[in-house]
């Protein structure tokens, strides 16, 4: 197992190099840089040149790539130009805000998906199953930004049930419990949208998985033994249906720490996705590049985690 993990980690290196080249090449294609994007009219051309040489923006692209990539290897992601702080610090500051909505959405979507998945498999072709199937398709095809806007319009603006955006009420100096409630209110809508977005495909997955298990002989045996239907479904069938689903947990990794760019923008949630979107608009390359690499690493680690989890959950799978 250890060997397998090490080998997979080593295999990530060429992929990461490829990704870094692609991302850097795209950013190098852009005319203009952070200095021009700021467009400060009071800045003289000499001053601009001076700043460029301080930031190392005056060097040719390939040199800049090697400097940047070399620093990355040493764990130095560079300094964000907009935040005047190391990229890793900025990520660390905001990533936890994204994590809050990410983890709640993960929890709710898995919970809802499991319950509906089990029951729509149990009552296959029933009216409930048909409704679920239709809802699954709707959830799978939701444009996230539109649903976010609709919810804000109806629940926040018209019904005034929730705050319109942000993470805490401005000017509210709440501590402890009050602060917690405030954040909870603000996070309700973004969590709801995120949950809706991922519940669809998850439900489908659980349903299929459950349908396969229910047809197995050992389920018939369990019923023949005279076990209660509840025991058969939740203990015998559900546990086995969960095995393939464990793999999916690994794939959730980028979603937890990567932030949801458009949603955070709409809900003015101070998460890392929001900061990332800003960094793209501001041409803050160190942050933009650094975070993109971070996202790619998360995806690769998530894939590895999925494979490892599968090996752990199902002893028939041998990882070599």
């Amino acid at each position, binding site marked *: 197992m250890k060997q397998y993990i090490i080998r997979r980690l080593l295999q990530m290196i060429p992929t990461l190099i490829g990704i870094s080249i692609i991302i850097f090449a795209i950013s190098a294609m852009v005319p203009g840089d952070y200095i021009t994007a700021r467009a400060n009219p009071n800045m003289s051309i000499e001053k601009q040149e001076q700043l460029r040489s301080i930031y190392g923006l005056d060097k040719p692209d390939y040199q800049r790539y090697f400097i940047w990539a070399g620093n990355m290897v040493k764990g130095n992601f560079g300094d964000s130009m907009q935040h005047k702080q190391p990229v890793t610090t900025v990520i660390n500051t905001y990533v936890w805000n994204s994590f809050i909505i990410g983890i709640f959405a993960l929890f709710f979507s898995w919970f809802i998906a499991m319950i509906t998945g089990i029951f729509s498999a149990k009552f296959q072709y029933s009216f409930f199953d048909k409704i679920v199937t239709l809802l699954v398709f709707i959830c799978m095809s939701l*444009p996230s930004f539109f649903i976010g806007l609709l919810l804000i319009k109806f629940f926040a603006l018209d019904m005034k049930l929730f705050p319109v955006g942000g993470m805490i009420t401005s000017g509210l100096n709440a501590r402890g419990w009050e602060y917690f409630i405030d954040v909870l209110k603000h996070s309700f809508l973004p969590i709801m949208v995120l949950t809706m977005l991922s519940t669809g495909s998850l439900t489908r997955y659980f349903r299929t998985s459950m349908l396969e298990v229910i047809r197995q002989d050992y389920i018939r045996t369990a019923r023949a033994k005279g076990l209660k239907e509840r025991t058969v479904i939740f203990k015998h069938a559900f546990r086995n249906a969960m095995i393939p689903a464990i793999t999916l947990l690994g794939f959730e990794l980028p979603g937890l720490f990567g932030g949801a760019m458009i949603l955070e923008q709409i809900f003015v949630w101070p998460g890392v996705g929001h900061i990332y979107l800003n960094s793209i608009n501001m041409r803050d390359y160190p942050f*933009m590049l650094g975070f993109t690499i971070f996202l790619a690493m998360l995806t690769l680690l998530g894939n590895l985690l999925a494979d490892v989890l599968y090996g752990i959950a199902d002893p028939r799978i041998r990882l070599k």
Partner: protein
Amino acid sequence: MSADVMPITENKNTKAKAVDTPWKTAMRRFTRNKLAVIGFIMIVFMFILCFIGPLFSPHNLFDYSLKNKNLAPNGTYWLGTDKLGRDILLRMMLAGRISLLVGLVATCITVMIGATLGAVAGFYGKLVDNLIMRVADIFMALPSLPILIILGAVLSDLKVHPSSRIYYLMVIIGVLNWTTLARLVRGQILTLREQEFMQATEALGLKDKRKIFKHLLPNTIPVIIVAATLSVAGAILSESALSFLGIGVVPPTPSWGNMISAANNLIDFRKRPWLWIPPGMCILITSVAINLIGDGLRDALDPKTKK
């Protein structure tokens, strides 16, 4: 398979009428799936609305009249008007043309690249396969939405003319999606190339190009159709998200996504929902419909599910 390999002329006369072609069977299975048929009707409706609807509109896209600005839906303007007094319904239908077209063309590009690379990788194996699949790994690990947004920003920086932006977008969205299809096609080709008919093509001394495009790829069409259908929905969603952020299709060209960006203005967002809800519903309906069709096709074309 192609005509010069099999003497089809003999077959034609002896063919029993009772036997359905695989396509007919698939068709029958598809029409039996209620949800898929509903999806199909919905998408046909969207196409008719967007491509034929504007011809019957009494309004003109260039009817700027400040007198009629920001009207709520009424008898003359069924979905109201925007801040320049333009009819929302007409704009929405024209926007649909753009959005649907971007989705379709982007998918065509995806299919061309994905199917070709997948087939080449599967057919030649070894070094070629390794090379293509490593590149695919890289593309798979690239975070797709951020890359799209960055490329959209690049388009803005390069000052690409609004009217030609949609072509760039089609290419970008199409190119970024090729990996899924390439993997699927490669998997199919790996099993297909070991079959007997491929030995026959070997014996006939056909060229590689011909083996791949005439004998292998046609056999993967069911897989390609399903993946392509689902990817149209993905492409439409990507385009609308980008346009919403102002870096996809930009005004004056209307697209569903950039019509929704009217919601960025708080007053419009709050008081004039007719500006942004209808195009949003169009995106939703289209993508649900396409997903329903895709799923129906998957069931219909899969030889394993016998109904």
